[in-house]
């Protein structure tokens, strides 16, 4: 793992994307191929399953570091990253060179084997590694053991590095890395170079993503060049039917076919082989339901009949990527739509309709109809555009509904993670449960938000927190109800997550209302009125 933890150290010391690509590309060219496969797996979210709970890791690390558990936890909250905390606490100052002798793939094989071993064996293996590795060795090792490997290397950046290392176009690489492949079995050659029809069978295409409209859609120019459709609030998904293969992939590249039994009938409904791009949405009385309803369906081990009745879904298609075995992505949007509309739509397979308007005012009017059709706003797609890879500016835009908003009171604060770990940046907001003049009036929490303020404002609020913090609950501090903020969100629905009994979608801070006193904040009743 020496090469790999040196790579992590180098990447950590770079801030420019072009330099990161170069360093990563050099690694891909020189590292053992098995290690390269694992590095690709790690940065495309295919790490082996965690062999051990983080609770145990934290206990063992505290023990090895010789600090009490509470002190370990408090340190962790301030550092904001578990692997980093462990490296800081357990590395001996004098160990400065040891990066580990084993290769990346050996370590990962060890970790896979570890999963079935006894707790004592796991502890012995892991604590020995911590004790002998240097800071970056230990940091990298623990990152492999725990959650996502988020160190500023996106899949896009990795794809670029692979392009430069192996001279394969990055779109092609993005496609090859899609879908199901097993890093323990696959070779680098098979993954990147071979044409394997069997592997292609269930492989999805990279998703094409939209940019938000920046100012006004008029900036996009000639209205006749744009197709307009409603934007559905569900799970972006790709539905594949190729011969006997039927697969549904989420945008996170997870195979979700089994999670939606009511979509299985689509397989027989489709006469031709196709790959469709669309949205899985919850349906109630023929109209899309809250996203919250769909959330009940996610990550379930067992899909019960009552759940199916309570939260049924449909697949609403809006693009066609492959038809009768032919890649359609280079066709124009209108050509793809033409072909898409020749498919028989019925039952759980629905078509998302589009329109071409005469002027931008009609577009605005259509957007105002979003509430009626229960969409999140509009999608604007250039009619001659091809289906690209990832987020590319210019062809697809999302033009969302104006957010809902209310004025709320800051009640709890928590330190941020990563880059924001030294500041309180995670804020919880509350509303009045009745008229604030009522002596019985209480504040009830309804949203947590951490974005929308400038660094300067965060600094000012942090200074305020220092002298206005009340009780402490672990990493969370209650603060004196005094500051009022305008909070924007996309929707609101009943939920048990917050004391108010309601939760909002994508809450964020719009501005600090220094001009408002707490009795001018909104009431819970106002929020309830926003439930659509």
């Amino acid at each position, binding site marked *: 793992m020496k090469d790999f933890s040196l790579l992590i150290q180098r990447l950590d010391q*770079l801030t420019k994307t072009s330099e990161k690509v170069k360093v990563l590309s050099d690694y891909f060219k020189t590292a053992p191929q098995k290690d390269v496969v694992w590095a690709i797996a790690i940065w495309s979210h295919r790490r082996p399953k965690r062999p051990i709970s983080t609770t145990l890791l934290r206990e063992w690390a505290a023990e090895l570091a010789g600090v009490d558990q509470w002190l370990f936890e408090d*340190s962790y909250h301030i*550092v904001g990253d578990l692997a980093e905390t462990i490296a800081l606490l357990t590395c001996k100052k004098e160990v400065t060179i040891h990066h580990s002798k084993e290769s990346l793939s050996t370590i990962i094989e060890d970790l896979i084997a570890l999963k079935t071993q006894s707790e004592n064996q796991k502890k012995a293996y892991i604590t020995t590694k911590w004790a002998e590795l240097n800071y970056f060795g230990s940091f990298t090792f623990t990152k492999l053991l725990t959650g996502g490997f988020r160190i500023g290397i996106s899949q896009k950046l990795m794809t670029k590095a692979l392009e430069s290392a192996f001279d394969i176009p990055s779109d092609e690489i993005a496609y090859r890395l899609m879908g199901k492949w097993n890093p323990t079995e696959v070779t680098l050659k098979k993954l990147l170079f071979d044409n394997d029809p069997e592997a292609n069978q269930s492989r999805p295409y990279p998703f094409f993503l939209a940019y938000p409209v920046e100012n006004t859609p008029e900036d996009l120019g000639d209205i006749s060049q744009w197709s307009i459709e409603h934007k559905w609030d569900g799970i972006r998904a790709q539905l594949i039917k190729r011969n006997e293969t039927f697969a549904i992939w989420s945008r996170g590249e997870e195979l979700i076919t089994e999670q939606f039994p009511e979509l299985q009938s689509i397989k027989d409904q489709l006469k031709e082989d196709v790959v469709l791009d669309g949205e899985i949405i919850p349906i109630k009385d023929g109209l899309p339901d809250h996203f919250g309803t769909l959330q009940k369906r996610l990550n379930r081990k067992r899909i019960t009949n009552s759940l199916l009745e309570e939260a049924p879904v449909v697949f609403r298609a809006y693009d066609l990527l492959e038809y009768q075995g032919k890649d359609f992505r280079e066709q124009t949007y209108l050509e793809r739509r033409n072909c898409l509309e020749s498919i028989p739509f019925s039952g759980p397979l629905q078509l998302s309709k589009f329109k071409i308007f005469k002027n931008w005012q009609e577009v605005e009017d259509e957007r105002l109809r979003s509430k009626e059709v229960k969409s999140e706003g509009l999608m604007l797609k250039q009619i001659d555009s091809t289906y690209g890879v990832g987020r590319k500016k210019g062809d697809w835009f999302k033009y969302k509904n104006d957010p809902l908003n209310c004025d709320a009171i800051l009640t709890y604060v928590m330190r941020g993670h*990563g880059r924001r770990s*030294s500041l309180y940046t995670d804020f919880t907001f509350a509303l009045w449960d009745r008229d604030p003049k009522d002596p019985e009036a209480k504040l009830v929490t309804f949203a947590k938000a951490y974005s929308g303020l400038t660094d300067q404002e965060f*600094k000012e609020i942090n200074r305020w927190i220092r002298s206005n913090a009340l009780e402490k609950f672990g990493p969370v501090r209650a603060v004196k109800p005094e500051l009022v903020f305008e909070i924007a969100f996309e929707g609101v629905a009943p939920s048990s997550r917050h004391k108010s009994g309601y939760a909002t979608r994508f809450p964020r801070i719009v501005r600090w209302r220094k001009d408002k006193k707490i009795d001018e904040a909104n009431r819970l009743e106002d929020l309830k009125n926003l439930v659509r």
Partner: protein
Amino acid sequence: MKPDLLSFTSKGIYCAAADVYLDPWRPVDKAIISHAHADHSRYGNKKYIAHHHSVPVIKHRLGGVNIQGISWNEPFSVNGVQFTLYPAGHIVGSSLIKVMHKGEIALFTGDYKLENDGLSTPLEMQRCHTLITECTFGLPIFRWKPQQEVFSEIENWWSFNQQNSFTSVIYAYSLGKAQRLLHHLQSTHGPILVHPAIAAVNESLSTIVSFKSVQTLTADINPIDHPGALLILPPSGREAKYLKKWGELRTASASGWMATRGNRRRRNVDRGFVISDHCDFDALNTCIKYSEAEKVICTHGFTDIYSKYLRGIGFNAGTEHAEFEEEEVENSTDLLVQ
């Protein structure tokens, strides 16, 4: 129970028996100052008492104030209460302030560090009954490497930048860290230039310590005359327009806060060199144990966590609120040039 020798008031740490304040944060008649950083020696006091070595910088910052210089280890009396200053090792002139009255001893650390930085007179920790301590880095995640290792890291980074024709820029506080860098970095390595604010501090310290002569970084300097240069700037200097003409820059920050990756990314610098003028966790513990204090009060830093830790190892420890800046990494305003 008799009243405490030192108490915390809205104006600062107060010795009622002597009617004098230690590092007050509001204007008072008489202040004893631990060191010359802006949050410890503020404007507006009628009289300042500080170590001789702090006097030039305080005068440089505050102008013609009424200030009296005192030597270390030489007790002086204020209204019958005995005060003594001892070296604190934080920056040049920084002092521990010991207060002795009717057999009771209290010690205020100001800011302090255990490692000998070669410039400030090394810390001489004292025994006391009550210890008022900072704990800026009072968490076990903060453990400093020997400074020589860090300075070699900096020199390696500088060499690498030179080989690639990058200009190296280090952000460091203009009083303390900047001089420490100057003192330890080998000037044979290449030209070093410092921000005018740092040059001004060097100038005011020149009667006390001598530095290798370095050029002051001004807008009219031509980078071509200084290939492979290292620029030392206060954190507030990163907006300076003339940096543009220095070609491709590689930036670094030299601070104890650089121990965590999050802080480094917040600052958006390429490298973070972990070097501090404060005690790390182990050094704090060493000093506090040495003091044999019956009561420990933590004033700034991770006070809640660190005092809880101290209680866990048997100290009678608590916290008091003091208005010293928590020298947080995101403070873009330098503590000296405000």
